[in-house]
């Protein structure tokens, strides 16, 4: 059975390393914060200007002047710092953020990502995504394996306007965990519980590399 959003978030949380600074995009990535083990010390960055995002506030703590990049009310933690958006992107562009987790509409087998526009239909804008994907050393995409219409979102080449080239290192979907290889291709690492390799093959339009037994995720 394919994972739900919580499942994807839980699986990505396993990728998080101790002592790192992380930027979480809107949507599933934001959920990842809830599943990082207590013994893993990380600091979450919000590109509007906060390092050290705390939990959502109690009703009494809600502060209109303290939001995350998704415009949700948040809190600070001990050791947080606040700064301007220019300073925030100094951090991002300067390579000081260790890991970026974000959503995508399409990912190509070269690691290209598209997530900001469907020509003629929908424009969200790129927000900070283009800066993040052009700058981060390590980028993990969290998304559904297929669109609502059943089309694969893991492609040979993206059809939608690009957000960044050759930047995605890993994709975690409702069906699978895949590495994007430097030489191109999605290397299948894990299957979602109950999802078969055949189902993943059928749902992946880009080059899929399968070597040996593919274990089930442990969540």
């Amino acid at each position, binding site marked *: 059975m394919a994972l739900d959003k919580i499942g994807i978030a839980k699986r990505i949380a396993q990728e998080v390393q101790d002592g790192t600074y992380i930027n979480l995009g809107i949507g599933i990535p934001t959920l990842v914060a809830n599943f990082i083990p207590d013994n893993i010390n990380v600091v979450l960055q919000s590109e509007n200007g906060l390092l050290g995002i705390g939990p959502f506030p109690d009703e009494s703590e809600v502060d209109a002047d303290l939001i995350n990049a998704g415009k949700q009310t948040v809190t600070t933690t001990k050791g947080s710092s606040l700064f301007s958006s220019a300073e925030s992107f100094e951090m991002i562009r300067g390579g000081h953020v260790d890991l970026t987790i974000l959503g995508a509409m399409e990912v190509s087998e070269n690691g290209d990502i598209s997530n900001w526009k469907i020509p003629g*239909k929908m*424009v969200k804008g790129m927000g900070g995504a283009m800066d993040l994907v052009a700058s981060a050393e390590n980028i993990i995409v969290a998304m559904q394996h297929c669109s609502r219409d059943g089309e694969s979102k893991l492609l040979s080449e993206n059809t939608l306007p*690009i957000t960044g080239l050759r930047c995605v290192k890993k994709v975690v979907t409702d069906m699978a965990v895949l590495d994007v290889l430097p030489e191109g291709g999605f290397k299948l690492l894990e299957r979602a519980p109950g999802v078969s390799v055949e189902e993943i093959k059928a749902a992946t339009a880009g080059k899929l590399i399968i070597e040996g037994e593919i274990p089930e995720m442990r969540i």
Partner: protein
Amino acid sequence: MINKVVSNAEEAVKDIPDNAVLMLGGFGLCGIPENCISALLKTGVKGLTCISNNAGVDDFGIGLMLKTRQVKKMISSYVGENAEFERQLLSGELEVDLIPQGTLAERIRAGGAGIPAFYTPAGYGTEVAEGKETREYHGKMYLLEQWLKADFALVKAWKGDTSGNLIFKGTARNFNPMMAMAGKITIAEVEELVEPGELDPNMIHTPGIYVQRIFQGKDYEKRIEQRTTKLK
């Protein structure tokens, strides 16, 4: 110290002419110059180019100025929360430049800091790069981006003194400090206006040199877009 105080928002914005280029601070609805926006709705100035990360929501912030058709062009990074913005963009009624958020922030900072152009990696290989010079540094490709300046920058701070020094609160800081730098005339509205000497010089976010007019705002609504609280 130089006194920058004007009496209110109406006084502060009254000479903003049609077709002016404005910068407006804020990220989403957080840290937006509410009083100045209200005053612009009253003056009815038209043909504005607004540089702002977002355009508010349909019924608050810059969204209100989109409804009244006072805005000719938006320069922003994100349309997400604003259906009217997205509609005007897709229909072509509104001219829109979408710019990566970090590039937008840095271009504004560059405008204030006298840096006419700089290289950034954001947007390389995307439609943002169309028509722009590219160059490789240390094995990575970069775009050449130019500064942004404005005729008027409208910023919102938490505290300010009469000489224009500003302190922001929380994530309401966002684009406000850079915009204060990049406005030919910078208008600051503050929740609390104090005398010089009352703010710690070591803790000023925006030095008064960047501010030409300042006033104490009133009736702040500070609307929240995504009120999210702890699960019980």
